[in-house]
């Protein structure tokens, strides 16, 4: 062979250049497709969060859903009763500190507390070895939809009309009639009233998860936190008071800590583990894993819960995600919401800064 570099003119030069072009363009197109830029029909975390933001309005620095809330702090007192089902040290007898957040759904941090008949409770348990358990629970027995696609359509259908500020009833009806999985939710929501206190509510994981025991066996569960003992109901808000939940919480905490039992429900045979829109029958085995004790609160704009993303897939060893399609969607969408609000908090170029005065 001759010195290769002396061959200036390869045969079929045009084809060779074309091959290089195809390799480069093909790689770029593949990347564009996988990244979603060339696949506009795909439901992305961005489009989900855009839909939430379109309904709640632009409120820089705030969560794109459950925007109005309050930080709480306390600890978890484990009973040890769950230890046979989960290998997590969290469930050995003992105490674990936690950072929580009580909130109402919706993307508007100034919404009146009565705007939804649902309250939410999010918790981050900080295990000694640096592991964490994050969970976000809603005070409702069942979720309206089973899939992220249906959740997205529900957001589109509930977009407030400019004149009434309320969703178009026709569109809502059309959504519910084409989504029979919403039946259980609709039956519940007819009877639901916005509670006057966070303290009296029971909050449900809704999504199912797996516990993994020390022997490697998995156990499908859902969990809830429910008030321990009899909790006096709130007197009810004064007329025109739209921020009664935080005031009620402060008042109760002034009198002493609030306690919720953490109850794990084990799935029976045949119970759906991948469908938050279906209720498990009564009478399932339940284990009281311990007590969530809340003894402090702080405003959400300066409290420790502000910069927490309560991504329900952040789990310690001994708890695992199930096949519920909402879990992956929540993880992806919460990350996008978290990036938007931390970018605004950090005054990144091209983002709107949080309105200091209003906070």
């Amino acid at each position, binding site marked *: *062979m001759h010195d*290769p*570099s002396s*061959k200036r003119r*390869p045969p079929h*030069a045009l084809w*060779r*250049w074309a*091959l*290089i072009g195809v*390799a*480069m363009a093909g*790689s*770029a197109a*593949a*990347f564009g497709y*996988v*990244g*979603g830029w060339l*696949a506009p029909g*795909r*439901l*992305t*975390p961005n489009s*989900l969060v855009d839909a939430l933001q379109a309904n709640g309005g632009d409120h820089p620095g705030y969560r794109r859903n459950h925007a109005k809330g309050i930080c709480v702090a306390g600890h978890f007192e484990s009973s040890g009763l769950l230890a046979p089902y989960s290998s997590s040290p969290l469930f050995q007898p003992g105490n674990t500190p936690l950072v929580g957040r009580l909130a109402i759904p919706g993307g508007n941090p100034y919404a009146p507390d009565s705007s939804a008949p649902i309250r939410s409770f999010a918790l981050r348990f900080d295990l000694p*070895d*640096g*592991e*964490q358990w994050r969970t976000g629970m809603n005070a409702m027995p069942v979720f309206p939809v089973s899939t*992220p696609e249906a959740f997205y359509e529900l957001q589109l259908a509930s977009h407030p009309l400019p004149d009434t500020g309320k969703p178009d009833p026709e569109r809502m009806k059309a959504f519910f009639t084409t989504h029979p999985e919403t039946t259980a939710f609709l039956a519940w929501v007819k009877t639901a009233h916005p509670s006057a206190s966070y303290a009296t509510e029971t909050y449900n994981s809704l999504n199912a998860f797996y516990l993994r025991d020390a022997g490697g066996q998995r156990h499908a569960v859902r969990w809830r936190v429910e008030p321990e003992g009899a909790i006096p109901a709130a007197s009810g808000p004064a007329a025109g008071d739209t921020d009664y939940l935080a005031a009620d919480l402060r008042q109760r905490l002034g009198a002493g800590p609030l306690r919720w039992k953490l109850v794990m429900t084990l799935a029976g045979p045949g119970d759906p583990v991948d469908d938050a829109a279906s209720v498990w029958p009564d009478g399932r085995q339940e284990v009281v894993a311990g007590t969530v004790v809340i003894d402090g609160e702080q405003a959400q704009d300066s409290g420790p819960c*502000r*910069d*927490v*993303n309560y991504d329900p*897939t*952040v789990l310690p*060893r001994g708890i695992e*995600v199930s*096949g519920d*399609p909402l*879990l*992956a*969607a929540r*993880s*992806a*969408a919460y*990350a996008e919401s*978290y*990036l938007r*609000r*931390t*970018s605004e*908090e*950090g*005054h*990144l170029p091209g983002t709107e800064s949080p309105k200091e005065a209003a906070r």
Partner: protein
Amino acid sequence: MNGQPMFHPFARVMHWLMATMILAMLFIGAGMVSTVSEKHQWLVGIHKPLGAAVFVLALVRLGFRLTHPAPPLPADLPLWQKLAAHASHWLLYALMLAMPLIGWGMLSAGGYPVTLGGGIQLPSILPANPALFAWLRESHRYLAWLFFLTFLAHMGAALMHGLIRRDGVLRSMTVARRD
């Protein structure tokens, strides 16, 4: 021809192993942030340990490279192309180290536990801070795009050497001609 300049076999194995891993990382990363399906979950589960492996291999490879010089580029290659080749190679090395570090740092700044699966958890390397998180998260995205564009140019140039100039540069990273 015995004098044909080649990369050390170890450098070649590392190059192709890491090229595969890094391309996979770029596609996994872009894919996982563009879907809300279950793919998101398992892609994130691969992304973090694979990214950590890239970091470790990049350190080993760079250590090797600093003690084993690369074969010279053809003498008749225009100066600007030589400069571009060297600059882009060092940029690729820099990104192999920076991307995993930023990924690790942003999870730390976001207050997340940095889990790699199988019960392995890395310590936090930065204090929890929302602004820091957001800057690092955006850098992770834009540097990934820069990484991909640099890869495209790098592949285009390598193919140009192999198919048009046929000057032995592509061969120096693949297998020697047997003649």
